[in-house]
C-alpha cells in the first residue's frame, strides 16, 4: 500500500496546478491547498495580508497636481508604505482608501476606524482625544474591535496626553512648526503609545497611532 500512496500523493500535487474554469473557485479544497502552500512560506501572515500599495517617487509638484487629498501611510510592522486618498466625508470623519482596498477613517487626524487589515478597528469615540490634543490631560477611550466569532468586542483604555516638545517637521519641501503630543493608553490586555505632530492651527501633520493587536501601528503624513 505504501507504493500506491506515494504515487497518489505525488499525483495530487501535480493535479492541483491544473484547476481552471469559472466554477473552479467553488472547489474549496483547491483553495485550501493553495492557502497551505502559501502559509508554508516564511513570514506568511504578512505575505497573506494586503498592504498599502508601494509609494511612487513622490515630489511636492506631484502632490500639488492631485485633485484629491492624500495621506502617505505606512503599516509599520508590515513594512508597507503607500498613498491613501480621501473618498468620503461624514461630519467630522473622513474616509481614506488605498487603491488595493484598505480604508482608514480619521477624525481631526485621530484614527476612528479601519477596514481590510485583518484585525480592524470597527469604530471609536475620539472626542476626548481631540480635546486632549489641545490641552493634554487624562481620559478614557473606548475602541470597538471585531473578535474571532464576528462579535463586537469593546475595549476601554485609560489614557494620558502630554505635550513633549516642539519640532520643525518637513514634509516634501514644506516645513511646519509642530507640537509633539504623546498619548499613553493602558488597557486590560494591551497598552499603546500614540504620537501626534500638531501644527499651529490644530492640523495633525504627522502621526503614529496604534490600530490593534493583530496589526500594530500605522504612521501617516498629511501631504
Amino acid at each position, binding site marked *: 500500500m505504501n507504493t*500506491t500512496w506515494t504515487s497518489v500523493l505525488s499525483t495530487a500535487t501535480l493535479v492541483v496546478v*491544473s*484547476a481552471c474554469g469559472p466554477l473552479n473557485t467553488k472547489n*474549496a479544497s483547491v483553495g485550501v491547498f493553495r492557502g497551505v502552500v502559501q502559509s508554508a512560506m516564511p513570514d506568511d*501572515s504578512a505575505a497573506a495580508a494586503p498592504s498599502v500599495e508601494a509609494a511612487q517617487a513622490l515630489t511636492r509638484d506631484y502632490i500639488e497636481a492631485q485633485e484629491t487629498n492624500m495621506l502617505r501611510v505606512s503599516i509599520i510592522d508590515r513594512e508597507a508604505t503607500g498613498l491613501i486618498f480621501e473618498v468620503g466625508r461624514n461630519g467630522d470623519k473622513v*474616509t481614506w482608501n488605498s487603491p488595493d482596498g484598505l*480604508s482608514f477613517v480619521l477624525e481631526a487626524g485621530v484614527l476612528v476606524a479601519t477596514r481590510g487589515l485583518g484585525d480592524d478597528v470597527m469604530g471609536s469615540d475620539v472626542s476626548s482625544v481631540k480635546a486632549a490634543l489641545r490641552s493634554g490631560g487624562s481620559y478614557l477611550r473606548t475602541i470597538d474591535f471585531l473578535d474571532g466569532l464576528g462579535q*463586537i468586542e469593546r475595549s476601554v483604555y485609560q489614557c494620558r496626553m502630554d505635550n513633549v516638545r516642539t519640532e520643525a517637521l518637513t514634509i516634501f519641501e514644506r516645513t511646519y512648526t509642530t507640537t509633539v503630543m504623546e498619548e499613553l493608553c493602558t488597557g486590560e490586555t494591551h497598552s499603546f503609545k500614540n504620537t501626534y505632530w500638531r501644527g499651529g492651527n490644530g492640523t495633525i501633520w504627522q502621526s503614529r497611532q496604534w490600530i490593534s493587536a493583530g496589526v500594530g501601528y500605522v504612521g501617516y503624513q498629511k501631504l
Partner: protein
Amino acid sequence: MFELDRIIGISGVLCAVIAATPAAADDDWRANYTLYGTPGIIDMPTAVAPADGEIATTVAVFGDTQRVTFTFQVLPRVSGSFRYSLIDTYDRSFDLQYQVTDEGQYMPAISVGVRDFIGTGRYSSEYLVATKTLGTNVRVSGGLGWGRLGSLDGFTNPLGIIDERFETRPDDSIDTGGTILSGQFFRGDAALFGGVEWRLNDEWTVLAEYSSDIYERETTLIGFERESPLNFGIKWQPRDAYQLGAYYMYGTDIGFAATILIDPTTPNFPSGLDTSPMPVGVRAEGISAAATWDNPEVETASVDALGSILAADGFRLHGAEVVGNTLRVRYENQRYRAEAQGVGRVSRILTQVAPVNVDTFILEPTRRGITTSSVTIRRSDLEALENEPNAAALSYDRAIFSDAAGPAPAVEWEDPTPAFLWGVAPYLELSLFDGEEPIRGDVGLEATFQYELRPNVILAGAYRYRVAGNRDEVGSISESDLPDVRRTSLRYGAESGSGIENLFMSWYGRPGQNVYSRASVGYFERSFGGVSGELLWKPVDSRLALGAELNYTLLRDYDLGLGFRPACSGTDCNSFVGDDYDVITGHLSAYYDFENGFQGQVDVGRYLAGDWGATFSLDREFDNGWKVGAYFTLTDVPFDDFGEGSFDKGIRIEIPSDWLFGTPTRDTSSTTLSSLERDGGARLRIDGRLYDVVEGGHQGQLEENWGRFWR
C-alpha cells in the same frame, strides 16, 4: 466509515493553523493530551478541561497499538472523543468526560469520565479523577478507575456499599457493537491511578504516572509485554497549535504522540481581509445620485449603475424599484459568508446610488433564486451610525426583519454573467476506517457545470475521471438481508474509475408567506437518482422550522452511467436479478436553533432500505461559521440485521474557508466521521436542502453575525 472527499481541506486547516498561531502563552496552563487523545497525563486521565471549543486531533503509537483520536470540547465542562485504533483489530470508540468542579484554592478539579462507552468496549472503562495544581508548574492527579482502569491490583468496588451488584462487571457488549454499555458502568473491581505533570518551562513538560490498566487484551492477543505500572514521558509544545510527546511505556516500550490543536474561536484574521466597504454617502455632504427615479430613463440607468457597482463587490442584483420614499432591492450575496455583512455592504452602496428623495431601504437577500428575508433600514441611521462606537448593536436595534415572499421589484437587472458556467478541478477522495483496509483513495479530475435557466431553476452536474488510486480494490461485501443501498457504495465508480457523480435540476420557490419549496429531478448522488420534493415552513424570526420531504428514487448502476440496477443478492453480493430497486422515502423534520449556539434536528420517516425510523442530530454552530455535531439514526432494522455498529451514527465538522485565509468566501470544507456504511437508516443525499439554503438569511443568523454589518 470516514469519508473524506475534502481531505486536502482538512489537512490544509491543520497546516494553516500550525503555521499561524502564536507561541504558547505562559499564563494559563492548558490541557495536556494523552496517548488516548484525551485530557490527561500519558495513558491516565486528569480532571483538566481544555478550552471551550478546542478541537484536538492526536496520533499516538506505542508497541503495536495505534490510536487516532479526535476530541472536541463540546461545552466548557464536557469533552467528547471519537477514536479509531488498532488494538488486535481496528476498533472505534467514543469517550465522554465531564468536569464536575473547577479547581479552587484548596479544592482540586474533579472530573468523571467514561471511555469507550458505545460498541464493542475493548477500551471500556470509567473513572473519577481529581487534579490540583501545586505552585505554578506542578499538576498532580489521582483517581479511581473501573473496567480497564480497575484491572491492576483491583479491589472490591466501594460502590458495593450502595448496591452489591456494583461488585461484578457484566459483559454488556453485543457482537455487532454500537450500543451504549451503561449496564457495566462503574461496576466490577476498582483500582487507583495517578500521576504528575511538571512544567519545566513554557515549552517542555515532564510526565510520570502510575497506570491501573494491566493491558490484558494486548498481552493475550498481540504479545504486548507489560513489566511495570509506571510510564514516563516528555512533552514539547512550542506553539499553541501542537504538542509532541515521547514516552517510555510500561517498562518495555517506547511511544510517540502528536496532537494538533485548533481553536475555532480564534481565526488568523478576526475581521477578515475583505476589501473596505463603500463609505456611506451622506446626503448633507452632497452625493452624485439622481434626485428621483420618476423618469423611466433615469430609473433604468440608475438600476444599471447599481447592478454594476454591486457586481464589483460580489453581489448579483435581481431587481430594484422605488415606491414613494422607499427603495427595494433584491440581490444575491455571492461573496460574504455572513448575510449580515452583505446587508451592511449593500445598504452602504445604496446610500451612494439611491435617489435623494429615498429615506428607507428594503433589502431582500436571496439564495438559489429565492428570497430568504426582508431587512428594512433607514437611510438616516446609516448616515448617523457609520464608524460610531457601538454602531453594530444600534443599527441592529433599528433594523426591521420580515418575510419577503412578495413579487420581485419592478425593474429587473440583466446580469451579464453567462447562464452556463463550468470548471475543472482536481479531487482527492479517501475512504478511511472501513474495517478491512484503513485507507482507500483516488485522485483525479472533476469537471463541473451549472446552467441557470432562471435564478431559481438550476441544472448542475459533476463528472469525475480517476487518474490514480486504489479504490478499485473493493474487498468482500458483508452479507445482509437488506437491499444494498449503502453497503456496496465502494463499488461505485471503482471499476470504471470515472462517471457521473451527480446530474440534476432543482427548482426553488416561495409558494407563500414563511414557506419555501424545492423540486428536483435527476441523479442526486452516486447511488440514487429520481425525483425529490421538499417544503419548509420557517418564519424569519422563528427558532423553529418544520419541513417535509418526499422522494421516489432508483438504485444506480455501479458504473456511474445513466442506468439503474436491482439490489444485489447472494454471497459476496454478486447476483443481480429482478426489477431495478426503487423506493419511496420521505421525512418530516423539525429544526430548532437553541439560544446557546446549538442546533437540533429530528427527522422522522422512511429510509432507503424501506425501513422506518428517526434521525437525531445536534450541532454546535459557532458564530463564525464553524460547526461540530453528532447524529444517530434508529430504525426498525434490528441491530443484528444492521451489521457492525448496530445503527448509523457519526460526527461531522464544517469549517468556513474565510476563517482559514481571511479572504471573503461562502465556501466551506466539511467532513463526516461516521460508523460503517450500512443499509439501515440511510437517507438520500441531495445537495441544496431547504433549511441549509434559508437558515443563513434568517434573523437568528443575521443577529449572530450583525457585528460584521459594518465590515
